[in-house]
């Protein structure tokens, strides 16, 4: 794996054919989790994936589309156009140095601008592939066997609480306020989290456990690797 500690000479000698870019977020995660939850998770998963692929691991983007939380403190966002520009510029920089593929791992469910950005890049530059798994946070096969409340939560819930207990235990607090809204996820298109639940949680964090986080991270890495293998084969 090559990363920020590698030199330009290391990169020239190893000519990686794929770069991995995690997209994190800095946003409220209730009373009990750090605002860096998404960023911490995506950094870990990106690093493990890049190691397996022998890829160039880029620094994970810390900020993304977090306006969906309203004015709750501890939230720092980029506008969708800004995130899209960042992705396009990174892709251009990789093309300029002859890297053929960019794998984007999206650590924040609200980044809906990534898909159109990637589609537009792939249509415009057929010799350069930008790949992104459809659902980074849902290893479809393993999810229900790991998480008891799979499918009921999307934010600061059992999965994220478990992953933070595993990756960042010193910063997980005890007051976990379970709340599952009686509306679909699309309500975040119509209202902000602060209005849907002032506690900032969508799901059942009380079910979070360290071992679920460890198994969940491993399952994520495996599902991403499987996706990359299939995608590169299909696109060949």
């Amino acid at each position: 794996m090559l990363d920020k500690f590698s030199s330009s000479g290391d990169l020239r000698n190893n000519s990686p054919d794929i770069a991995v870019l995690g997209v994190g977020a800095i946003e409220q995660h209730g009373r009990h989790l750090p605002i860096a939850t998404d960023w911490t998770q995506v950094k870990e998963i990106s690093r493990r994936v890049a190691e397996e692929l022998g890829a160039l691991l880029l620094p994970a983007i810390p900020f993304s589309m977090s306006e969906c939380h309203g004015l709750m403190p501890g939230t720092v966002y980029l506008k969708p156009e800004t995130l899209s520009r960042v992705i396009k510029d990174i892709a251009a920089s990789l093309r300029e140095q002859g890297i053929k593929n960019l794998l984007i791992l999206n650590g924040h469910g609200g980044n809906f601008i990534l898909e159109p950005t990637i589609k537009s890049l792939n249509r415009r530059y057929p010799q350069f592939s930008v790949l992104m798994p459809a659902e980074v946070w849902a290893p479809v096969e393993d999810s229900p066997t790991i998480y008891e409340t799979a499918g009921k939560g999307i934010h600061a819930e059992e999965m994220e609480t478990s992953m933070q207990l595993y990756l960042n235990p010193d910063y997980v607090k005890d007051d976990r306020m379970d709340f599952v809204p009686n509306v679909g996820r699309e309500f975040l298109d119509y209202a902000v989290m602060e209005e849907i639940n002032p506690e900032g949680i969508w799901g059942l964090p009380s079910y979070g456990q360290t071992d679920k986080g460890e198994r969940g991270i491993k399952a994520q890495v495996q599902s991403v690797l499987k996706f990359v293998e299939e995608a590169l084969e299909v696109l060949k």
Partner: protein
Amino acid sequence: MMLTVNHSAWDFKDVKPEVAVLPLACFEPHSNYFPVGSDQIIMSAIGEAVAQKLEETTFLLPVWPFGTSGHHAGQPGTVHLRYETLWHVVRDVAFSLHERGIHKIVVLNNHGSAMATTTKPIGNFVVKTAVRQLNYENPGIRTIWVQPFAAGRDKLSELVASAKEEIHVGAVELSLLMHLLPENEWEGPQDHIPDVDPTYLEFGPFRKYSPNGVWGNPSDASRAKGADVMKIVVDETVRYIQETFDHLKEIKEDRGGEY
């Protein structure tokens, strides 16, 4: 007191930090030999030390890792943004902080150079525009920018003879890297100070003026100097920030404006 991204939103509700510190870096070759993420490593250390040392309660943001390194485009390991992109990143981050009640925002605009000043930066020049527009367009916001090597320029030039002629992988930057990553090997590039004004970086690529990717005297670097560089740039940056906010407060209050 300093909050980081490891704190929770409710910690922010309780503490209500007064000042946010946003360090910016560039992802670019540091000659053939040294880390492409050198600036991120440096700005992470400086950002944390500055945020801890400021008098106010602070919020230390993660380092934004990519800058306008177009003069290194095409070299292995360069990831550069167009100037509009970096402008929008700084604008969005600062505005989102302002919207949530943190009105004093310090942009540490990469490390800069002792050749630069607190008036005219070297590298990421658009940040100056981004900061101006934030202040002009958003009443009540107080955004400032500073480059730590520029803030410490006079003291750095007492420590390193070539400090004010260096831009990239010189003795100042390399000493600091040696101090921050003592286990690494730091052998490699030859000293090189191009015979042109650095303004020429706006007209042509870096390698045109410096085939080995160096603008400075790395042979003059040492780990001991690195510890001194760190102390100088942190102290002088904190001093600059504190004085700037104080003067700004006087100016705004004299005009009867809201502070």
